[in-house]
């Protein structure tokens, strides 16, 4: 069978001692940084990204995948222990997880989160392995018009990711697209918006933008109060869930996995949508809905599974179409391009070892998380107690070295400071950075495909509507836009988000 031989190739690639080691380092580093309060998966990956550049493409992407899972798990840990979710997707975990921790069941909550994630990760990895190859065949039929429409759908869906105002999220997407225009025009070679600085002719450095807008802006925000945070002082409690706990978590875990796998494929923040959807479903199905918000184990197991399944299946649009579904995947695209791998339907055919290696490493990364992190939880808790004023100078040093090492270009360091300031100002104005990053990555691709489609369609804009796939995607974009703007949905969204705050 194709699937088995492919998976064998994948595990052979990811299973070499060297790659296992990089995956392990990735998981540890990812958890280490991700567990720092207020720093979510995106910021963690942005900071650690440069470390992977020195490696072979396969090892580098495997290590990145490890960092990703580690960071996600680290985010859940802070959400449960100190009610500080680093990313909106673990915000849901914080609702009931923190309440469980306050009742002395922190250990159980952490174990349930890890077990749920592992189960969801296993199922979703298998789904990626089954569905990615046939989808690459469909993807090969995509022309410029289809790519443009699909990216438009992704960008519009991205606004579901943002916490606050939809208008602001849209504006951030457009601002990201504009920043993506900086650099030399691909068709005419005209430099655009470079202010005459030749170092910016290749475009703004993606790592600099990500580190500035996520990492540095976050540090500035944490320095506002300059006060100590309250770390959970009560005991962790027993790690292993009781038989009753296990029985209660099975059904939510299964439902969460199914929801997450389906929603994760959607471009634009499937994982976060999935964790909110799962929480709502569990609350509705529960016989004791009043327990939700006061430490219901279902409220941790469901969303954590959904979140992880969604995180996994969001690799599908990336590996088949080269289109990142969320900011983390956008970072992955950036890393792949720097490694000389062009993400898209050709990866599976041209570099099967890389393609299947990444898929296998997803599962290995998840396994390592559970083997490594359950015993190490005590250590992570200690790390939470390290005062922030010792941590952030270290982070700044790493960021500076990291950004510089990408291209050995000092202008990238000036850009980091600029983006840090910009990110902080925008954060103060309640504009979220995630849509901006997505816009920045998709901007050049969007423009290139628009221009190509218009040339191929002889300047007739109806080309987007007469091609069936493209038309379907545009209709879906319109539906998403209408749904998000509907008054009832807006109210519901506000409720869900305020519940998580």
């Amino acid at each position, binding site marked *: 069978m194709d699937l088995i031989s492919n998976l064998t190739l994948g595990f052979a690639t990811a299973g070499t001692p060297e790659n296992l080691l990089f995956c392990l380092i990735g998981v540890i580093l990812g958890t280490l940084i991700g567990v720092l309060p207020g720093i979510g998966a995106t910021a963690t990956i942005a900071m650690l990204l440069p470390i992977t550049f020195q490696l072979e493409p396969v090892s580098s992407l495997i290590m990145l995948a490890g960092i990703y899972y580690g960071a996600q798990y680290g985010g859940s840990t802070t959400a449960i222990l100190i009610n500080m979710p680093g990313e909106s997707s673990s915000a849901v975990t914080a609702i009931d997880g923190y309440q469980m921790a306050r009742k002395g069941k922190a250990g159980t909550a952490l174990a349930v989160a890890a077990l749920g994630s592992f189960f969801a990760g296993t199922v979703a990895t298998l789904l990626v392995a089954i569905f990615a190859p046939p989808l690459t065949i469909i993807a090969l039929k995509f022309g410029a018009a289809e790519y443009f429409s699909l990216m438009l759908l992704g960008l519009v869906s991205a606004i579901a990711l943002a916490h606050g*105002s939809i208008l602001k999220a849209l504006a951030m997407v457009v601002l990201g697209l504009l920043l993506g225009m900086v650099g030399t025009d691909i068709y005419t070679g005209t430099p*655009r918006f470079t202010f005459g600085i030749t170092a910016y002719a290749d475009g703004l450095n993606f790592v600099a933008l990500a580190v500035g807008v996520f990492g540095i802006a976050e540090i500035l925000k944490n*320095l506002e109060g300059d006060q100590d945070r309250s770390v959970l002082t009560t005991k962790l409690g027993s790690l292993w869930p009781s038989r009753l706990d296990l029985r209660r978590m099975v059904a939510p875990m299964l439902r969460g996995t199914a929801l997450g796998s389906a929603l994760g494929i959607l471009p634009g923040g499937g994982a976060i949508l999935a964790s909110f959807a799962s929480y709502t479903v569990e609350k509705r199905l529960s016989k004791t809905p009043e327990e939700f918000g006061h430490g219901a184990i279902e409220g941790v197991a469901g969303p954590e599974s959904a979140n992880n399944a969604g995180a996994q299946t969001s690799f599908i649009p990336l590996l088949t179409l080269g289109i990142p579904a969320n900011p983390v995947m956008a970072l992955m695209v950036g890393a792949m391009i720097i490694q000389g791998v062009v993400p898209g339907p050709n990866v599976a055919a041209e570099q099967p070892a890389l393609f299947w290696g990444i898929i296998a490493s997803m599962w290995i990364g998840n396994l390592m998380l559970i083997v490594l992190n359950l015993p190490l939880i005590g250590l992570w808790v200690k790390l939470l107690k390290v005062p922030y004023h010792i941590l952030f100078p*270290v982070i700044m*040093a*790493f960021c500076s070295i990291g950004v510089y*090492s990408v291209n050995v270009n*000092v202008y990238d360091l000036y850009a980091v400071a600029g983006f840090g300031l910009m990110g902080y100002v925008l954060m103060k104005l309640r504009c979220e950075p995630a849509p901006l990053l997505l816009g920045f990555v998709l901007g050049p691709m969007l*423009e290139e495909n628009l221009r190509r489609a*218009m040339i191929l369609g002889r300047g007739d804009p109806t080309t987007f509507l007469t091609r069936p796939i493209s038309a379907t995607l545009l209709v879906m974009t319109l539906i998403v836009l209408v749904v998000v703007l509907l008054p009832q949905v807006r109210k519901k969204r506000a409720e869900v988000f305020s519940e998580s705050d």
Partner: protein
Amino acid sequence: MNTINKTDAVAGILFILIGLAFGAQSLGMELGTSLRMGPGYFPLVLAGILILLGGCILASSFKSIDEEMTAHAWRGMMFILPAPIFFGLTVRGLGFVPSIFFTTLIAALASLKMKPLAALLLSVGVTIFCTLVFSYALGLPFRRFGPWLSFLGM
């Protein structure tokens, strides 16, 4: 009743200004036709959309309630942002080791809680760690001590 949401108002104005800046620059470039778009075409469209969205945000700020803004991290901005700039200015001249030491030290000053001695110790520790990891272990091509220090005989 008619309070203005200052956060939204400032955000709206900021987006309009950014849109205008990009738009003005796009007009200076060849626009082309919709069949063969020039370098200025797509950015101009985007700038227009951004101005429009900024306008909507500004307009909506007049109808909503004002929100309290959190404190500004002035001290943070004063020391955090110059850190990478300092690293950029000196990494070639001073070399990696002294440059990363001062970068960490500058960043450490951003918090009032950091005592001078602790900051110094932390910076030394970070410098040793980074030199070992990035320069020796990962073999990044940085000069450890740059030409500005050549008079020291290094």
